[in-house]
Every structure is written in structure tokens, then in C-alpha cells.
């Protein structure tokens, strides 16, 4: 079978023969490309419902949510929250998030954030698991926040456990780094 096209081009020189062969083999892939396109389209539609309830928002989106009275939740620790948070935010540390959030109205919008987006991403999947339908995720975290910060306990839901730097036997050097 595969010899047939080659036979036709036998009289021509080698380059044209090889180009005929490669276009023939390209033709063989066309149905597969079509299949691949269909698979991708189906995958996009199949995945869409799962993400439909969650919107990623930026600083403006947070400000709009605050203006609309949306519940804004800071999932960082109490100490981090007290050090500075988005005005009006409520503090529910991630380890308590699942149980606290399960008592909220699942049809009401909820906006979550943390320091850099890692913990709030976990909170988002907890909310999705609980069946929340209007989730907003400030995924850049408070490091990207350009508005004013509110300090202190605010509307914190948990008791204060913020540790002060205690006197110790030896001086201490803290280094904060990332793996970047």
C-alpha cells in the first residue's frame, strides 16, 4: 500500500519524492489532530463547572467586594492578622477554616486571602468541597494589597495567641528566605 505513492514519484528526483512521502504521512495525522482538538474542547467544558463557582480577583475586586459587603476572610494566623489585614476582614486561621466555614450561608459570596495565595487556595478547595457557589479568591495575597491595612484584632473570631519575642539565654538571628 505504502509503495503506491512512491511508485508514482519514482521518475522524479529524490527531494520531491521525500516531500510527497512527508505530505502523505502528514495526511495520516489529520484525523488525529481533529481527535485531539475534540478532546481538548471536551476537557475544557468538562472542567468548567468545577471552577465556575470560584472567581480570582485582584485588588480592585477585593475593594468592590468590601463595598458590596461580601464576607472577606483572612485565613492566616491570628498573629499575622493582627499585624495588618484588609479592613473589614474576618480572621479564620486555616486550621479552623473547615469547621467555621461549614456554618456559613453557602449561597452567600465569600472572599478569601492569605499572605501569598497558598493557604487561601486550600481554603478555596474547602469552600468548594462544602458546596459554596460564590467564592472569590484574592490569589495574590496580602503582599499584593495596595490599600490601607487595619491593625489589631479587628473582628477576629479566634482568641489572641500572638507570641511576643521573648527574652532568651542567647541572642537570636532570624532569617526569612524563599526558595526562589
Amino acid at each position, binding site marked *: 500500500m505504502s509503495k503506491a505513492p512512491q511508485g508514482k514519484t519514482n521518475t522524479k528526483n529524490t527531494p520531491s519524492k521525500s516531500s510527497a512521502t512527508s505530505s502523505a504521512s502528514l495526511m495520516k495525522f489529520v484525523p488525529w489532530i481533529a481527535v485531539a482538538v475534540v478532546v481538548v474542547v471536551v476537557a475544557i467544558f468538562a472542567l468548567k463547572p468545577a471552577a465556575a463557582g470560584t472567581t480570582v480577583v485582584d485588588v480592585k475586586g477585593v475593594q468592590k467586594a468590601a463595598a458590596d459587603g461580601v464576607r472577606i476572610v483572612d485565613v492566616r494566623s491570628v498573629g499575622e492578622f493582627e499585624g495588618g489585614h484588609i479592613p473589614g476582614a474576618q480572621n479564620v486561621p486555616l486550621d479552623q477554616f473547615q469547621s467555621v466555614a461549614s456554618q456559613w450561608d453557602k449561597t452567600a459570596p465569600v472572599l478569601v486571602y492569605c*499572605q*501569598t495565595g497558598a493557604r487561601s487556595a486550600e481554603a478555596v478547595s474547602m469552600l468548594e468541597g462544602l458546596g459554596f457557589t460564590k467564592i472569590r479568591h484574592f490569589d495574590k495575597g496580602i*503582599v499584593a494589597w495596595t490599600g490601607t491595612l487595619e491593625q489589631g484584632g479587628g473582628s477576629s473570631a479566634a482568641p489572641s495567641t500572638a507570641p511576643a519575642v521573648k527574652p532568651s539565654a542567647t*541572642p537570636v*538571628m*532570624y*532569617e526569612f*528566605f*524563599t526558595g526562589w
Partner: protein
Amino acid sequence: MKPVVDRLEQQYQGKVEFKLYDVDSSAEGNQLMTQFNAKYVPTFVFINRDGSVSTQKVGETSEADMKKALDALK
């Protein structure tokens, strides 16, 4: 920065306690960073025995500067 910090940690063993936090993975590190009002990495915070902040250095810091800060600790 890591080789410098490792070397200093050895040199100051028993004199200064080194506490290193990867803020990508450590919630405690994030909390402390907020507490020290540190916004960038790397940040070095030097704490005296009484718990007061002696020096805070931000960004790549030379070994000599690090030593100066470590020696200034009370």
C-alpha cells in the same frame, strides 16, 4: 546567601541562635515576618537576649555586615 549563613551559624554556635524560615512553606515564618514588619526576602532580624530588635537587614548582605550585626548583639 546560604553558604554565608551556614558558615556564620557554625562560627557563632552557642553564642547566637539561628532561626531560618522558608516563608513559602512555613506559616510560623510568615507570622514572624509580619510581627517584625518585614516585607521582603531575605530579611535578617537580630534579636538581643532581652527580646528587643538590635538590627534588621533586608536583601543580600555581606558577610562582614552580618558579622558586625551579630557582634553587636547583647
